[in-house]
């Protein structure tokens, strides 16, 4: 090991963190995002935007693990898909309030996350990824066989119902505002988690796990809590999507879904606050506008993935942030 002789210049205290722990640049980006959420439904299809928002929430939840803890899960479809099924079931069969049904979906994701996470966090790196993939495949096969999922047909004709006993969600615009509120709540929750005493420990574990252990941190507990939070929010995203489209199918639990969320996060910028949101907008738009070309979607996605990994390793937001020397 070579000794560094030059001494770094002392750094000044950082400017006090503004509202809710956002830096100035992040606060600006957040306002831009809010404006987009308010204006865009008058220009673009609300249904499309709702897909973007829930894709973004799913990717943000996934990013909590990979970006802030260095844990690459290849099994997040299990939480998203099971959340979608149970949310659908709660709405259609139990006739619960839409908000409550979505919470049921989140709880399903969280509980499943507790079980799968408990098994997976014992390993790290590629082994962690493989275990999550294998466990999610088991969940998939369970869903293929279990009668309540409706097999190939899925659970169909789910009524959107009423949120909080007050807001009927039949119109797309009503559903849109409800979806936007859920997205914002999830987004801000993740931001708060990252900027909490708990989040500080997550960063320590990512940076130097043996050192965190040697300071007396029971790192498995922290990983499991983060995993459950991530799975909970994935379940919320899945359940909300099934309410939006009135259908929950095997599409939610299939391993492609786990791959999509990895892609979305990478394209947007891993470990950035806004990267997963931008990534979701880009990948959903691509899916939407390339749909007419059939299987070309997959090939184009693959190509974009390769370009991103080779040329823009930090993802769209990561590159922009690096160029502007900002944290986004």
């Amino acid at each position, binding site marked *: 090991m070579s000794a560094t002789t030059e001494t*770094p210049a002392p*750094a000044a205290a950082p400017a006090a963190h503004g509202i809710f722990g956002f830096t100035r640049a992040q606060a600006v980006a957040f306002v831009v995002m809010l404006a987009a959420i308010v204006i865009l439904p008058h220009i673009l299809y609300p249904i499309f935007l709702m897909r973007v928002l829930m894709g973004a929430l799913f990717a943000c939840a996934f990013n909590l693990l990979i970006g802030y803890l260095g844990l690459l899960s290849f099994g997040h479809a299990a939480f998203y898909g099971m959340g979608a099924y149970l949310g659908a079931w709660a709405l259609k069969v139990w006739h619960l309030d839409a908000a409550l049904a979505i919470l049921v979906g989140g709880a399903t994701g969280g509980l499943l996350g507790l079980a799968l996470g408990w098994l997976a966090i014992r390993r790290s790196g590629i082994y962690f990824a493989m275990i999550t993939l294998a466990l999610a495949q088991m969940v998939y096969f369970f869903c293929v066989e279990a009668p309540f999922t409706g097999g190939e047909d899925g659970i169909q004709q789910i009524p959107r119902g009423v949120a909080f006993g007050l807001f009927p969600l039949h119109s797309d615009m009503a559903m849109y505002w409800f979806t936007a509120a859920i997205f914002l709540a999830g987004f801000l929750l993740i931001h708060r988690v990252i900027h909490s005493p708990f989040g500080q*420990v997550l960063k320590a574990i990512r940076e130097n796990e043996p050192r965190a252990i040697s*300071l007396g941190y029971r790192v498995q507990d922290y990983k499991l809590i983060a995993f459950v939070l991530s799975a909970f929010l994935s379940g919320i995203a899945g359940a909300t999507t099934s309410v939006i489209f009135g259908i929950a199918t095997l599409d939610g639990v299939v391993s492609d879904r786990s791959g999509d969320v990895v892609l979305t996060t990478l394209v947007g910028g891993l470990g950035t606050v806004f990267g997963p949101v931008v990534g979701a907008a880009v990948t959903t738009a691509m899916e939407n506008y390339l749909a007419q070309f059939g299987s070309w979607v997959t090939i184009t996605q693959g190509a974009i993935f390769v370009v991103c990994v080779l040329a823009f390793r930090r993802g769209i937001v990561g590159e922009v942030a690096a160029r502007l020397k900002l944290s986004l």
Partner: protein
Amino acid sequence: MADHILETEGLTKEFNGFVAVDHVALGVRTGTIHALIGPNGAGKTTCFNLLTGFLPATAGRIRFKGRDITGMRPAEVARLGLVRSFQISAVFPRLTALENVRLALQRARGRSFDFWRSERVLARYNDRAHQLLFDVGLSEFVHTVAGQLAYGQKRALEIATTLALDPEMMLLDEPTAGMTHADVERIVELIHTIRAGRTILMVEHNLSVVEGLCDTITVLTRGRVLAEGDYAAVSANPEVIAAYLGSEAPHAEPAHA
């Protein structure tokens, strides 16, 4: 024995048949600075890994403060007050010096599962963290990202972070390795000031550091204890001289290892 804070009995570690630590009986007296020396590959770092639970022992027992800690998980060992440093400097590179130290304070004082609170609650640890950074000479670098610190400063930050836990016993693995002369002196002085009320077990290659600092020295070669005693006794031991001549000279090494 009551005056031993740390004791091992027949401590052994095998890696696929290779015996890295071989029936080591170590006794560290409370309040002393104890050196573990020996040529590269002697098993010193492996010993540290065993003592702190980072590796499971193949055989033998470890007692800390009279309590059997064999097989205990590393985080639990740390919570009992036996805290280690690492041979390669162990900081959280993308966090500031202040945040590094606060992470230790936050653990010791219990605030770490609050995921719904703002990290602003951690400001309550700032005064103590500033004091610790001042003690190790890093006052000017409180807000510097740890990865940008010079090598000697990283080691100092590591010690400040460990001290934040106020551990009864510290294990330091080559705290002065790869340092400039001035940095070595600063660390030696620092160890002098932090020893009050503490026991320190350290791996150290620089024998002039050992001579000036340590009460007891244990010499390890090929996993076995070759000799134990104070500096005068150990350095006069013919077996130690032979062992060192076989590999590396017992003189102080150049500052840049």
